[in-house]
Every structure is written in C-alpha cells, then in structure tokens.
C-alpha cells in the first residue's frame, strides 16, 4: 500500500482494506495505532505499564510476607521481612499494626466504640450524598448522630469507661476534625460571605475581607502552630483548652475563609432580580437571605463545596506536625518501633488507600451532583 493511501485507511478502514475490520480491531487502529507516532507511544507505554505492573505485582503479592512468627514474649520476629526487603512487601506490618493505625491509643478492649463511630460517619456521608435524603430531617439526623458519636467516644455512662480525648486516635480523629471542622466552618463562611457582600456596612465588609484574605494568604501550618503555641497564651491562667479542640478551632477558622469564597461565588452568580423580588414582597433581610438567596446560591455551588471539602479532608493530615494522633500520625508512629522500621511504603500505601477511598467517593459525588444540577442548562 502506498503512503498516500494511509490517511484514508485511518478514516475508514473497512472501506480501504476490503475485508471488514472487527469492532475491536477498528478500535485498536483508531485509538492506539492511528499514526506512527501514536503507535510508538502506545507500545512504549504498554511496555512500561506491563513491566512496572508485573514488578509491582511481584512485590505486592507474589513475594509478599503476610505473617511473621512471634517469640515467647509475644514480640514479632521481623527477620523474614528484613530478608525480603526490596523483593517482597511486608504486609505483616499491616496485619500487626492495623488496630493501632485505625484507632491509636484508644483502649484496646473498647475499640469497638470508635469503630462504630467510623461506620456512623460513613453512613452519614453516604446518606447526605443521596438527593432523596435532602430534607429537613437530615439536619436532625446529623445532630443526633454527632451527639451519639461524641457520647460513644467519651463514654462514662451505662458502664462504658470514660476515655479522655488525648487517648483518641487514628481514623476517628481524621473524620472528627474534618466533619466538625466543616460543621463549624460553614455558618462562619456564610456569615463572612454575606458580610463581604454587604453594601450598607463598610466596616463589617472590611472586617470580613481582612479575615478571609489573611487566612487564605497564610499556610495552614502557621494556623496550627498558632493553635498549639499561641492559644494557651491568650487564655487566662487556669483555663485550659485541650490540644484537639485548639486544632479544631484552627481548622474551623481556616476552612471558614475558603468556604466563604465558595459561598460568595454562589451569591454573585444569583441574578439580582431574585433579591429585588424578595424586597418587593416586603421580606426583611434575614427572611430574604434565608428563604430566597441562600437556598439558590448554595445549590449552585454544591459541587464546589464538595471539592473544597475534599481538600479540607486531606489537610487534616497536617495535624501530624503538631502531634495530634490522626490517621497519618498513627501510621507514622507504627513504623517508629525498631522492629518495623523501614517498612514505611507498606504503611503509606495503606494510608493512601484509605484517604483515596474517601476522597474518590467524594469527588465522584461532586461530579454526579454537577451533572444533576446542570440538567436544566443542557439541551
């Protein structure tokens, strides 16, 4: 076949080649081998993918160590893992440490309590992502569930021993920081966004602009440092807020500023006629805002809110730096033990998988909602 024919071959292979191509062959030709360059790229990528994929499979599955023996004192003997280092993964570290990574220093016999809390959180998220649950009762369910979670974690009633919050750790801490942080930040964000857009009150607007821009201009770490070393200086002697609550406050302030900008985007996107119509009906400012403006403005930005929440969920890992035992910190602490030193990759993969599951679920939800809400605009 001459070179001049090749372009027509790509366009319509069934015609040029005489014999009709099967669907798969047509797909391969048009999507992987359309041009010589594309074919070379495809082959190179395929080669790398297979080679690295096989190496990874060998490391993670074929040569992996799943269990290690224990000596008489019950200490793990990690010699097998050391011997396989670099060749096979040592999943024994996960088998040995997963309870610590998930629940931290929470008393071992009581760890069913944080486990239930994690399930409650996941149930709440899953329910909130479904449009058919979007009713007034959902807020009530959230309130009840959050109280229940607090009660379960602390205990101290009905025969449950009291567990102080400095013993909490792992996944529940990550979920608590993210969820309560968002719950606290959201009202703050709405107020700051409304304040920033208020025309009649320049002083309040300046205050909101300062808060939003100041927080957005500095890294979260500086706020967490502030929470851990500066907050104690702010309080009168004898009053002490514990570390977790201080970090939670820093998170609320941080998330509030970012969410405020998202809410503001929603407010700006709302046509002016809506609030003018509300004025014409004689509604007061708060009636207008709560009944007309916010429901429409927030609906518009739900996908963006979810995306902000994903970022915020990932950012909870930064509490590692001020020594709060969230999921990342427990994972890192697990490999501090001399016996398990050097098996970071296995643990990091586990943590990455956990974070990925949560974030990916949220980003799918965000995409689904975006699709749903754009239904009106699509033709």
């Amino acid at each position, binding site marked *: 076949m001459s070179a001049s024919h090749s372009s027509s071959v790509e366009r319509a292979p069934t015609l040029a080649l005489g014999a009709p191509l099967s669907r798969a062959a047509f797909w391969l030709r048009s999507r992987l081998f359309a041009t010589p360059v594309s074919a070379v790229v495809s082959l190179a990528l395929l080669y790398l993918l297979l080679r690295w994929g096989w190496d990874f499979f060998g490391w993670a599955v074929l040569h992996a160590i799943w269990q290690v023996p224990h000596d008489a004192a019950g200490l793990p003997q990690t010699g097998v893992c050391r011997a396989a280092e670099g060749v096979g993964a040592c999943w024994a570290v996960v088998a040995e440490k997963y309870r610590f990574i998930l629940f931290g220093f929470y008393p071992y016999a009581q760890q069913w309590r944080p486990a239930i809390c994690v399930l409650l959180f996941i149930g709440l998220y899953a329910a909130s992502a479904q449009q058919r649950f979007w009713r007034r009762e959902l807020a009530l369910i959230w309130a009840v569930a959050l109280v229940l979670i607090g009660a379960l974690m602390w205990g101290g009633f009905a025969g449950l021993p009291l567990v102080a919050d400095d013993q909490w750790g792992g996944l529940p801490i990550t979920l608590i920081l993210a969820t309560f942080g968002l719950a606290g930040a959201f009202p703050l964000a709405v107020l700051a966004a409304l304040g920033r857009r208020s025309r009649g009150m320049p*002083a309040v607007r300046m205050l909101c602009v300062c808060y939003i821009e100041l927080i957005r201009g*500095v*890294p979260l770490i500086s706020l967490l440092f502030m929470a851990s070393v500066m907050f104690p200086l702010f309080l009168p002697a004898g009053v002490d807020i514990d570390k977790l609550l201080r970090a939670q406050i820093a998170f609320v302030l941080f998330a509030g500023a970012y969410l405020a900008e998202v809410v503001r985007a929603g407010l700006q996107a709302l046509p002016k006629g809506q609030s003018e119509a509300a004025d014409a009906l004689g509604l007061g400012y708060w009636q207008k805002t709560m009944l007309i403006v916010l429901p429409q403005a927030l609906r518009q930005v739900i996908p963006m809110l979810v995306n902000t929440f994903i970022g915020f969920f990932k950012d909870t890992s930064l509490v590692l730096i001020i020594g709060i035992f969230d999921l990342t910190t427990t994972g890192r602490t697990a490999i501090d033990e001399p016996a398990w030193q050097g098996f970071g990759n296995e643990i990091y993969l586990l943590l990455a998988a956990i974070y990925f599951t949560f974030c990916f679920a949220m980003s799918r939800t965000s995409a689904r909602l975006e699709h749903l809400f754009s239904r009106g605009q699509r033709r």
Partner: protein
Amino acid sequence: MSASLAAPPRRRLRLSWSDARLRGLVWQVLILGAVALLIWYLARTTAHNLATRHIATGFAFLDHAAPIPIGETLIDYTPSVSSYGRALLIGVLNTLKISIVGCLLATVLGTLIGIGRLAPNWLLARLCGAYVEGLRDIPLLLQLLFWYGLMQTLPAPRRALHPLAGVFLSNRGLRVPALAWRPGDGWVLAAFGIALLGAFLWARHAARRRDATGRGLPLWPAALLVLGLPAMVAIALGAVPGLDRPALHGFNFQGGLLISPEYAALLIGLVVYAASYIAEIVRSGILSVSTGQWEAAQALGLRRGAVLRLVVLPQALRVVVPPMTSQYLNLVKNSSLAVAIGYQDIVSIANTTLNQTGQAIEGIALIMAVYLTISLSISLFMNWYNVRIALVER
C-alpha cells in the same frame, strides 16, 4: 447633624429603628465594638501571661546568636555566630528556592499531562487521567513522607548509584558536577548578561518588524550572540570554564553541586501534586477554546502540534491564568510542609527559633508576614500578566 453635613444630598438620618441606615450604623458599631473588646481582652490576658512567664516581647532576639545548624544555605551562615535574623533570612531564601523551581516545573509537567489527557491516543489519555485522579486524592503530606522515605532507601555514599559520569545518587542526595568559579568568570557572566539583553532587543525588534511588514527577521543572530559573546570573552581571558566534579572523601562526597534528599523529596512531592491540579486547569482551558478554532487552524493546513502551540494554547491561556495563580499560591503555601521532612524553610527555622527563644507570637507573626508578602507578590505579578494577555476588546 453630622451625617447630613458629610453628604448633603443624602436623606436625613432618622432616629428610628425602621431607618435602614441607622440600623446599619448601630450594627456596625456593635460588631466592631465586640471585636475590639475581644482583641483587647486577648491582648490583656496575653500580656499578663507573658509577664508571669518572664517572656520579653519584641524583636530584639533577631540580633542574638542562633545555635541552629542549617544544612542548606544560599548565604554565609555559621551556627552560634550568625544571628537569628540571618537564620530566618536563610529560611525565607530556602522557601523561595523551592517555590520558584516548584512553580516552574509544576507548570511544565502539568501542561504536558493536561495536553496528554486530551490526546487522541487512548492509552496516553487514560494514564494521564489516572495520574490526575490518583494523586489529587492522596494528601500531599503522605506523598512527601513517601518520597522522603524513598530517598532514604537509596544506597550509602560508598555504594552510590552512578548513572552518568560525575553524577552520584545516594542517601545523602544527588551530586552533580558544577561549573568551577574562577576569577575571570565574572566577566564571562557579565558578557552572558549583555548577550541576553542584546538577544531580547533583537527579538523585540524582529517582532515589531513582523507586525509592521508581515515579514520577520531571522532569529539566528540572537542565538549566535548568546552563545558567542561569553565564549569569546572566555577565550580572550584564557579561562575556559572548568568543572567541579564531586569525589568521594571518607564517608561523603565533596565538591560539585548538591541537591539534598530533603530538597529533592519536597520538590518531587510538590511538583507531582501541583501538576495534577494544573493538568486539570490546562485541560479545561483547552476545552474552553471553541471547536471552530481547531477546525479553522486545521483548514489552514497546520499540524496538531502547531494548532496547539499557535492557536489553541494562546487562547486557553486567558482562561487558565486566574486559576493557575491560585495553584501557585497553593504550592508556595504547601511548601511549608517542608517542616515534616526536615527541609529548613522559613516555617521550620521560625519554629526552631520560637522553641529556643520562647518568642511564639513574634515567630508566628514572622511566618505569616513572609507568606502574606509572597502571596501578595504572586497575586500582583499574575494580575499584571493577566491584564497583559487579556483579549483587547473595543
């Protein structure tokens, strides 16, 4: 009444709760009063706490000698001799060093992946998609810990990897040959600067002429100038630039240029993470250019690469710049995670300083001031750039 004096055409302020302006005024006074009261209360308690703990306030500690060992310094520094101020300045420089290089590399990688995600090749597009989806959903801190862990599993200097002549990769970092600095090199560098300026002027002249007459000037004189002038100066001075090659002395390498494992881990982590966001921005920017532009360019006979480079990307740039600005800001702020893996940026050094001196408020205020300044500078620069490339309409 004072309000009517300030703004004569305005309606007179009525002393009634149904007057929106009076309500607004009262609310503002109340809110500002509450905030002022809170700040006053916090300031008073803080002053009291500082007094009972015998912590002096103020920035006098900046002149005290700083016993902080610092691994990477761009300017001279001796622990216990140099001041805290100098140590903090090194921190700022280190933050800038990682931020600038990080922004540049992340832009390149992100743009490539964003374009790759739209490639007609199914495998390439899918892999780029997996990259974006995968890396965006894993916390940056975790990625940094992973990269740093990887750096530590590299062999010791004695058994360093040696992929190219003069390049050594070990758990002490990457050593590459550097240009050796000798007395005559200042002149060579100056000649290089002059040549760059000349080339820039030539390119501008060529562009003007192309705009005016439709016919451009060749660009090879500029290239010749950039390469030729420094070479001529070097030969004239008899100083052909030499290489400073790293060599193993005892347990570590000496000489050459060192990229520390901390810097490398932080740079890889930041670039790889930010690129996943930038790729999405670039992709949506390219998609925002209407199909008609592609078709028109193809009808003119341009190849795909030329269509992208000459027609689509310049138009996509307008959509891309504002979100890109916030990604750069994020990258700079994220570089503060350096403290977790021991790269000594401003946060890390300020944190050590406030632990040693007890000056918590000053230390955190310094960190915030540095980041606010950097953020503001990037915003201003990108706004200027945005105005420059904006579509000029009637």
